[in-house]
């Protein structure tokens, strides 16, 4: 067996895989944040809670309604996205004219409410969610063992990320969205229903978070705190990537997951903080982020 810098290849590739999986979640979540930020100018602090809701809806579908993983993968984003639409209509709309920081504070309050409610109902210990039978097992690639479900997560998140990128950058609806981001008043004057666009965008961003939550459910145990710490790492990813481009969010998400995975192999003590250290370095060299535009 060959060794790379004294690390057995199984461990190395295992962590690379784990890094790519975490990167998938970073990418989907920072993409959702970027989409919402673009049009609403709000950092959606409840994004982590909405990711957690996605996982819980999948769990509820299975345990209360007997609906399998594939139905949940479709249903959970729709349900959680609908709650997002309600939040936008009932709450965020009312503070749209205020300083953007109020949006951050409001969504922070919402995150506390959502997490508290789930913690009351289900406790903090975490609930198991089985891997769907179609995706159990794995492939022996010779140099490592690849569990099917993990391969699926990376594939699914790549498809969703690239699909979103295509929707925003290449379609007519996306061009309306980009126009509304640049100049909402003018876009409205052209007869485009900007408030509706804003509502749907928020719903879509939230649905992305919920989709990530369903993907995560079989890997991590479903628990009310699963979004809280993750979202702060995603904020750091967003600062590193800059909010300028959709592609930026995807590329930064995956690469930082990978870097984090590699750090776990070579210097495990720094694994929890490596993303924050990169954030500091990027801020020093390029304050607008790697893909961001200087304000």
């Amino acid at each position, binding site marked *: 067996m060959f060794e790379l810098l004294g690390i057995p290849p199984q461990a190395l590739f295992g962590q690379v895989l784990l890094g790519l999986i975490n990167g998938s979640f970073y990418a989907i979540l920072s993409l959702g944040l970027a989409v919402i930020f673009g049009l609403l100018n709000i950092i959606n602090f409840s994004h982590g809670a909405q990711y957690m809701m996605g996982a819980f809806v999948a769990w509820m579908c299975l345990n209360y309604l007997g609906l399998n993983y594939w139905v949940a993968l479709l249903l959970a984003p729709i349900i959680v996205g609908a709650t997002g639409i309600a939040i936008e209509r009932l709450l965020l709309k009312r503070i749209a004219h205020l300083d953007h920081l109020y949006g951050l504070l409001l969504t*922070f309050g919402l995150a506390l409410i959502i997490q508290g409610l789930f913690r*009351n109902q289900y406790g903090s210990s975490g609930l198991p969610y089985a891997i769907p039978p179609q995706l159990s097992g794995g492939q022996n690639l010779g140099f490592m063992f690849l569990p099917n479900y993990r391969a699926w997560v990376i594939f699914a998140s790549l498809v969703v990320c690239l699909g979103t990128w295509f929707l925003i950058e290449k379609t007519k609806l996306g061009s309306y969205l980009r126009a509304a981001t640049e100049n909402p008043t003018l876009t409205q004057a052209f007869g485009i229903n900007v408030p509706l666009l804003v509502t749907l965008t928020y719903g879509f961003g939230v649905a992305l978070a919920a989709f990530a939550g369903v993907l995560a459910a079989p890997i991590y145990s479903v628990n009310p705190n699963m979004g809280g710490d993750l979202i702060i790492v995603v904020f750091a990813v967003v600062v590193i990537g800059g909010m300028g481009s959709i592609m930026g969010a995807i590329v930064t998400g995956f690469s930082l997951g990978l870097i984090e995975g590699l750090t776990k192999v070579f210097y495990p003590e720094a694994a929890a903080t490596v993303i924050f250290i990169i954030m500091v370095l990027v801020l020093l060299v390029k304050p607008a982020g790697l893909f961001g535009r200087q*304000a």
Partner: protein
Amino acid sequence: MTDLASTDTPAAAVLTETDDSTARLHRNLFIAIAALLVIAPFVAYPVFVMKVLCFALFALAFNLLLGYGGLLSFGHAAYFGMASYVSAYTAKNWGLTPELAILLGTAVAALLGTVFGALAIRRQGIYFAMITLALAQMVFFFSLQTPRFTGGEDGIQAVPRGKLFGLISLADDRALYWLVAAIFMAGLLLIYRIIHSPFGQVCKAIRDNEPRAISLGYRANQYKLMVFVLSATLAGLAGATKAIVFQLASLTDVYWSMSGEVVLMTLVGGLGTVFGPIVGALVIVSMQNYLATLGAWVTVVQGVIFVLCVLLFREGIVGVIAKAIKKPL
């Protein structure tokens, strides 16, 4: 972009003009607060009052940055918590007297504030908030991974209160109370002085219109950094004092929910008002004490208060009073 306090809290905007009657009102309020501090330990449980005072100082420090500097830091738990660890560690393991332990904790918070502030002011608005939050999370991971210093999950327990100046024992709650009250009062007076100094006026000008302040020749970033460091230092003073009062420093103090709590206290009391954060801290700490039996529902209640404050009650308690009497408070 950074006109957070001025656009929505008229109370803060009026504050620039402090006329004679307002100055008299403020002086009377200070006398009233001092009088309250003197009677408080005799009518209420002293440890509870000390807890309120520590958090009130923390909220005052935070409000100095947000209300008067227009900078929303979402990571103030870092300075509060780190100072609390340093003060607890040095008091317990180095046997420092309480005043030295508190001073050392405060100094470390100042240092941390300088480094983090210099990084964070490179971006504005929402980015600034996210960067302070991410940096604070780094401090949290550091605290979690260095159990030899922080005690990990257990925290640093049984911190000795020691003897003030090596002479006066602080083991008795009442004795310690006077020290905490003095620290709180000194912090409040210092913040009042900062707000009403030429330096404070420039900070408010930058908050209201940064490009204009820069065009007038002010180095906005230096002022922003300065107010950030002052705020971090005073937050550290509050955290260090809290460690001595409760004889405990723990991960809760550096966790990001603590940063959220101090924002909530400031919002409830009145953003950009001098006395608001004190009222806010009193309300939130009392709420936590009396609702403690509800368990996780406390988080839900806090979240609801947060949402209501942002939607309907942006001026906060003191802001509403200030508006009613048409005087800045």
